[in-house]
Each structure stands twice: as structure tokens, then as C-alpha cells.
């Protein structure tokens, strides 16, 4: 059986979640995180950029449930508003690298021979390059801002998806049904897009989920370094950085809350990705 089986959307969630508590829990957390990114900016108790010198550096209180930062901005509001950029930019990155990675993987598997071998080697070399390093160099060339890491990390994450999808696509292309399609006069493009792609798609999704976890971490780090999203815009990585001087005064809440959210998101998507891969592996 091929990577199939894991299919069909509404049934998918149900079937996956059944008898797997960890998977159910991570899927619930994912849903909450995605909801945060969607509605977070609209439900902030205060405008996230509104400073209030009189309320600066406060601990948690009835007015400010998580307290305020050194400029008096409400931390809860900033965390909620920061959810969208913190999750959106990694998502765009992973989307781009998954599409490109899958396309490269299937093209390599379909052509086979030299093309495939060269692609595989190039992917391995790319895999060895650390994402942060590329992003830092990218910032030097392209300048800072949220779109710079999107461009550089999209390239960096291509091998994360392509390597795994390629080996599945190579297996798929060797199955007799692909030969049967060739014999029946279907074009290579059609066989790749209608048949091979559909059969490796579940794996692509699982791999993209994993890559999303890593991208979250890299984006947080890049923003923390001041190369990504720029202050005063709220973003979790930025907030960890902004909270640093406050920590010297014993006010841990800004760095800690933003940092915990990043960790939570990274762990959630990593577990989800691993579980999905395992499920696909089991049904193969």
C-alpha cells in the first residue's frame, strides 16, 4: 500500500485522533494557536502599542492581567497582537518551501538517473547549512524586516521537505501503476501531478508540519536578534528581546511569557509532525 490511506479531510481528523491522546491534545493546541493568530489582534484589551508611562513596569494586576513592560504597554495585548506575525511568517515560509520542495522532489524522482542523484546531493548540502546563518547573511544583503527571513528560510527549508518526499516519490514512481499510466499515454506532467503528487501529499503535509515547528524557532531567534520583525511591532521573538533589560530588575514576565508561547508552539507542531509521519509510515 502506498502513502495513501491517511486521506479524506473530515474523516481524517477523526480517524487520526481516535485512540491517540497525545495526538488529540496536540491537535487541540494547534487549533488554539491558529485561532490566536486569526482573532488575537482583534481581542486585545488595550491597543498593543499604547504606552502609559504611569503604568510602566507593573506586575500582574486586575487592569493588566500579565502586567506591563518598561514603556507601560499591556503585555497580554502585545502577546495577542504578536501571535499573528509570530505564526504567519513561518507559515508563509513553510508553504513556499513545501511547494518548491515537493516539486523538486517529484521532478527528481520522475526523471531518475543523473538528475535524481545530483538533486539528492544538492539537497544534502543544503541540509547541512544552518538556517540562522543564512538569515544573518541575508539580512546583510537584503536588509532587516519580516520578509527577509521569509525569503532566506524558504530556501533553507526546501531540503527539509524535499529529502523525505523524494524518497517516497522514488518508491512511488517504481510502482507498476505509474508504468501503466505511462503506457496508457498519460503525459509525465499529468502522472506527476495527478497520481504521484496525490500519493505523496500526506507525507508532504506531515513534513511541512515538522518544518513549521523549526521555522517558528528560527523566526523567533531572528526577531530576537533584531533582524526580523522590527519594534515597536509586537512579535514574540521581539518581546523576548525587549524583556531582557527588565529581567535585570526582576521582571521576568515579558521574556518568559513570550518565550513560553514560542516553546509551546514549537513543541506542539513538532509532536504533531512526528505523529503524522509515524501514522503515514504505519499505513505504508
Amino acid at each position, binding site marked *: 500500500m*502506498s502513502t*495513501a490511506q491517511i486521506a479524506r479531510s473530515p474523516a481524517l481528523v477523526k480517524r487520526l485522533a481516535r485512540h491517540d491522546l497525545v495526538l488529540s491534545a496536540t491537535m487541540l493546541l494547534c487549533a488554539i494557536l491558529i485561532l490566536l493568530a486569526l482573532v488575537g489582534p482583534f481581542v486585545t484589551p488595550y491597543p498593543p502599542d499604547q504606552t502609559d508611562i504611569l503604568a510602566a513596569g507593573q506586575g500582574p494586576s486586575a487592569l493588566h492581567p500579565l502586567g506591563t513592560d518598561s514603556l507601560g504597554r499591556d503585555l497580554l495585548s502585545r502577546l495577542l497582537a504578536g501571535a499573528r506575525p509570530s505564526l504567519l511568517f513561518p507559515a508563509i515560509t513553510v508553504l513556499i518551501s513545501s511547494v518548491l520542495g515537493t516539486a523538486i522532489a517529484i521532478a527528481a524522482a520522475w526523471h531518475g538517473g543523473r538528475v535524481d542523484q545530483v538533486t539528492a546531493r544538492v539537497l544534502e548540502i543544503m541540509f547541512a547549512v544552518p538556517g540562522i546563518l543564512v538569515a544573518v547573511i541575508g539580512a546583510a544583503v537584503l536588509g532587516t524586516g519580516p520578509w527577509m527571513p521569509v525569503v532566506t528560510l524558504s530556501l533553507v527549508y526546501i531540503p527539509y521537505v524535499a529529502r523525505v518526499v523524494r524518497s517516497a516519490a522514488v518508491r512511488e514512481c517504481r510502482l507498476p*501503476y505509474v508504468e*501503466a499510466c*505511462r*503506457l*496508457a*499515454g498519460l503525459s509525465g506532467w499529468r502522472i506527476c501531478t*495527478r*497520481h504521484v503528487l496525490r500519493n505523496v501529499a500526506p507525507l508532504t503535509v506531515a513534513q511541512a508540519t515538522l518544518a513549521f515547528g523549526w521555522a517558528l524557532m528560527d523566526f523567533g531567534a531572528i526577531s530576537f536578534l533584531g533582524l526580523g520583525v522590527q519594534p515597536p511591532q509586537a512579535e514574540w521573538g521581539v518581546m523576548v528581546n525587549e524583556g531582557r533589560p527588565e529581567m535585570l530588575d526582576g521582571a521576568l514576565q515579558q521574556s518568559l511569557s513570550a518565550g513560553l508561547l514560542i516553546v509551546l508552539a514549537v513543541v506542539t507542531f513538532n509532536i504533531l509532525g512526528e505523529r503524522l509521519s509515524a501514522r503515514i509510515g504505519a499505513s505504508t
Partner: protein
Amino acid sequence: MTAPSLGPLLSVRGLRKVFADDVVAVDNLTFDLSQGESLAIVGESGSGKTTTARIIAGLDSATAGDVLLDGRPMAGTGRRRRRDVQMVFQDPFGSLDPRQKVGAAIAELLAVHFRLSKAERRSRVAGLLDEVGLDERHASEYPRNLSGGQRQRVAIARALALEPRLLILDEAVAALDVSVQAQVLNLLIDLRDRRDISYLFVSHDLAVVRQISDRCLVMCAGALVEQGETRDVLDNPRESYTRQLLDAVPRPGWIPRRRQAGTPS
């Protein structure tokens, strides 16, 4: 319609295939297959029978020699002529896309090759399924929900959808249970009565070959050992290798025998 040609439908001339590791899979093979004929290629593993079939189907390229359809080379021909030669594979589990419903798998081929309206396509799919002994319920099934025999019927329907003149059957019934094998074998026999179609039937099973072929070729280690009318070859084999093959088939009163020393193992 092509003009009724007097020559054979398929001519194979001096076919030779050498694999990368210098293994000669097929060596100087020459034979003809006429329109409407059923020709079997018989041999054991390593005889080159499947390689021959794959080259004729266009899935592999020959090292030397020609494959001619209506006297014209097959190599590099367009889709219309490719359609004339179709193939059914041995493995009923791998030869269908696991994520494509049976009806869609057949309709896809029709859509690519023929200009048909949606309704025409649907009725053609129903007709083809009916022809191979399945019905419309099966059209909306995924291959995993079908038995091996049913999948092999679907593979046959897909091949027939392109209205080929030559159907290559590569051990097409070998992987099936005995009780199902007979069904598919009978289906193939009936199809040839209904349609003007030629078979190239690749098999190791002499009993099956006897039922379905008019003529047969016996191959061993890439070379043609013997050819002739199936009945003649199986009843009065001229070559000792053919006799060895026949003697090895379990049947009433059969006693397994050790091969004489000197035969390769």
C-alpha cells in the same frame, strides 16, 4: 482505420537487450504475431520473456533490433500508435493508483485519448466495467476495497479503454488464487472472441498457455528455444528444454525428479 495489411501486426527482428551489468537478457530474438492471433511466450525466470514484453510495450529500450507494428518501427511513435499496444501487469495490487477510484481511473484514460462528452464517458466506463464482469458499484470503489481478481479486471478494463490492437499480458493471472484465476482466464478467452484483439501472453504456466494461445515461443536464457502451434509444442516438444519444462509440471502420477547433473542451478 488502417488498410488491411497482409503482413503481421507485430514483427520483432533481431531483438537484443544487454543490461548495464553486461547481462544479456534477450539475444537475437525474431518472431511475428498476426492480427487477431494469441501468441504466448513461455519461459522460466531469467528467460528474457518479461524483458521482451516490456520492450514491445515501450517501457524499455532495446540494445539492438527492431519492433515493428504494421511493418513500421514502434520506437518514437506518437500517442495514437502507442495506444495500439497496451499491457496488463502481474501484480494486481500495484498496478492501480491507490488513491483513484476505479471509475475515475478508466475515465481519465478516455478523457486523454477521446473527445467525449461527460455522459458519453460515463456510459463508456459502465460498458467497459460490464465487459470485464464488474458493475457500476465497483466504479466508486478504491482499489484497496477490491479483491485481487477484481483489480486485475479493472486493469484489463483500463487497457481495453484505449481500444488496443495488441494486448500484452505479463503473467496476468499468475498472482491470482486458483479459483479466481479461472475466472480471469475465461474472461480473457471471451474477450478475444468478442473483440478483434491480439494477445501476447507472457507466462511460465504451461497449462494456462495451452488454454489461451494459438502459438507459443519457448525461451531460455534470452534465446528462442522452440516455436510453433501451442498444441504441437506442448504435445510433441522437439527440444529437450521444452520437454524438461513439461516434465516438471505436477500432474496426476507425477513424480518429482532431480535434474541431471550439468544443468545450471
